[in-house]
């Protein structure tokens, strides 16, 4: 059985060699279709992989609570100081109220101006605890990062980020030097004890989480922030004064296990809504949810790409059908001879189906080979744009600039199977036409 199958395929191959150009063009049609499937899926996977990595950096077992400034209409009274957001009480309630909680990391953040000598830098001033560095994958490049003891001792010490260090101290070692941090119209002096390694900024994910640049930060102990700067921060901007009263800017809650994320976030939302009512002054971001959404998006994207690629395979199939119809007409006499020698209709169908399968199979194999060229091709195109068309390069979003296609194994298998399937489907009609020919007519055919 197998031997016969192989023999049939071999003979098919031999007949196809009679018209190399014609067979080659039909193969090319399928090749393009298969390559399109593999490339498009690989590019799609590459893009969504980036998105997923960003979400995973947030930590899948995390729940991120943020203070959100309510829209102007809902702010109470005529006071120019707006009070909103998460409170230290919220923090305590969450710690007590969520049974599966592993830790909760509070953080307070404002924008501020920092000076060192004559140099000045606009920074994000962050009051945090030791765990902050851990959950944001920040590590020390020089000196040390903040510890639990620093929080207890409430000292005026700071850890600065890489870019901040560069703009304040150039290439000097910032350790042991002092910086002046201005807030609420007063200036405090802090001792620099460490510098963090530079970290890739995280991109924004949809509308639920904005991007974050970790390289322009200054970190001080949360307790120091509270005693030196306080909850109420007033900033003066050309003539008008603006103030806000916020206890905590963000609380990052970590639970023990992925399965506990949903329950914990429900509890937190109920808990917070009880005290915040409908003010809408906080947001809850669940990276796991984002991950699920991204996964959904990726699937929809893949379906779309496969549909597009499927169309090109369909066109390839039509090409195959076209040449098979020509082949059948051309070999009418051979069909007649074979029938006279005892070939049944099934034999004739098999013979021509085998030929289309060889065509589409070859196209499929060649397409898979070309599919593997996706990465070098992508690299080449990006390289050409980067070096020869720098203007276009700069206008590309980082997602494209850093795009690494990921060839999905399933796409290779699917593309190959579909191509052979296309061969069968589009070969069936010409083969049937050959089989149903009247043998006598076929023998007389000139």
């Amino acid at each position, binding site marked *: 059985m197998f*031997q*016969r199958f192989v*023999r049939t395929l071999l003979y098919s191959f*031999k*007949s196809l060699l*009679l018209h190399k150009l014609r067979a080659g063009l039909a193969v090319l049609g399928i090749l393009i279709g298969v390559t399109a499937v593999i490339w498009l899926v690989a590019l799609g996977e590459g893009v969504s992989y980036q998105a997923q990595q960003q979400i995973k950096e947030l930590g899948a077992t995390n729940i991120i609570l943020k203070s959100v400034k309510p829209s102007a209409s809902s702010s109470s009274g005529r006071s120019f100081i707006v009070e909103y957001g998460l409170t230290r009480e919220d923090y305590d309630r969450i710690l007590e109220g969520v049974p599966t909680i592993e830790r909760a990391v509070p953080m307070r953040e404002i924008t501020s101006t920092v000076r060192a000598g004559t140099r000045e830098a606009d920074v994000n001033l962050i009051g945090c605890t030791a765990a902050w560095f851990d959950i944001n994958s920040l590590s020390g490049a020089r000196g040390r990062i903040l510890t639990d003891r620093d929080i207890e001792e409430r000292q005026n010490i700071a850890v600065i980020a890489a870019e901040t260090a560069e703009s304040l101290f150039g290439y000097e070692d910032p350790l042991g030097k002092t910086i002046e941090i201005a807030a609420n119209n007063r200036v405090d002096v802090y001792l620099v004890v460490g510098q963090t390694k530079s970290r890739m900024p995280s991109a924004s994910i949809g509308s639920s989480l904005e991007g974050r640049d970790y390289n322009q930060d200054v970190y001080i102990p949360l307790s120091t922030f509270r005693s030196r700067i306080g909850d109420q921060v007033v900033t003066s901007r050309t003539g008008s004064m603006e103030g806000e009263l916020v206890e905590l800017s963000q609380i990052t809650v970590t639970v023990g296990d992925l399965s506990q994320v949903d329950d914990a976030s429900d509890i937190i939302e109920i808990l917070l809504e009880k005290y915040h009512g409908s003010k809408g002054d906080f947001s809850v971001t669940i990276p796991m949810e984002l991950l699920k959404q991204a996964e959904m998006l990726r699937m929809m994207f893949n379906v779309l790409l496969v549909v597009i690629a499927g169309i090109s395979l369909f066109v390839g199939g039509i090409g195959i059908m076209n040449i098979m119809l020509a082949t059948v007409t051309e070999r009418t*006499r*051979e069909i*007649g*001879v*074979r*029938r*006279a*020698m*005892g*070939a*049944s*209709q*099934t*034999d004739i169908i098999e013979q021509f189906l085998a030929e289309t399968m060889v065509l589409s199979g070859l196209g499929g194999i060649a397409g898979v080979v070309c599919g593997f060229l996706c990465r070098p091709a992508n690299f080449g195109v990006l390289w050409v744009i980067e070096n020869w068309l720098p203007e276009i390069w700069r206008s590309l979003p980082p997602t494209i600039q850093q795009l690494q296609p990921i060839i999905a194994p399933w796409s290779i298998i699917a593309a190959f199977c579909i191509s052979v399937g296309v061969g069968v489907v589009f070969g069936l009609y010409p083969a049937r036409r050959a089989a149903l020919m009247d*043998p*006598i007519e076929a*023998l007389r055919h000139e």
Partner: protein
Amino acid sequence: MELAGQIDDLHKYYYLGNQVVKALRGVTAEFPGGDFVAIMGSSGSGKSTLLNVLGGLDRPTSGRYVIAGNDVSTLTDHELSAIRNKLIGFIFQSYNLISQFTVLENIRMPLSYRPDRPPMTREDIDWCTELALQVGLGDRLDHRPHQLSGGQQQRVAIARALVNGPAIILADEPTGNLDSSTSAEIIEILNRLNAEGRTIIMVTHEPEIAREAKRQIYMKDGLIAGDGIFPG
């Protein structure tokens, strides 16, 4: 002697639009095993149609055709194909070799349609080579049809017709495209095959070829006009 084939009141009509072409209008004949029959007649007399029906390539509109005990009208395409493969060897006027195949591949082609489609064995190939030797083409196994003369091509076709050891050989103007000396060679081969016990039914319009057969059937307007032993 056992009958190789028997036809009884055979009719064959073709429908061309509104027109009915009556190619056979009630033909009755018997073909004993080991017979060598020449069917003669002018073109349009129905002799080719008769041969096609005898070969199982065409089914009669009405009437009975029994070949080796099987009534053709009751057979499926598959069964009829098997009968063509096992019992009948075809020889055509225009040889009908497959141009992309070599001599050897052409000869062994019917083997791939044997019942149950067994794989080709070493013995099969040896047998095909042996047949090629018998028709005098042992040194041309790798040639393609276009590299052979007409007579040589017809001899390949004869070897191909013999490969499954058929009881009946049907030849449709086997010498029609050949000169007289080559024709004589082909007729000699057919005579030899007949002497080995095979039934040969040959359509021809050349009296000197028909004369070589044991028996002649003359056809006219879809009917048998005469039947006899030539020269008689």
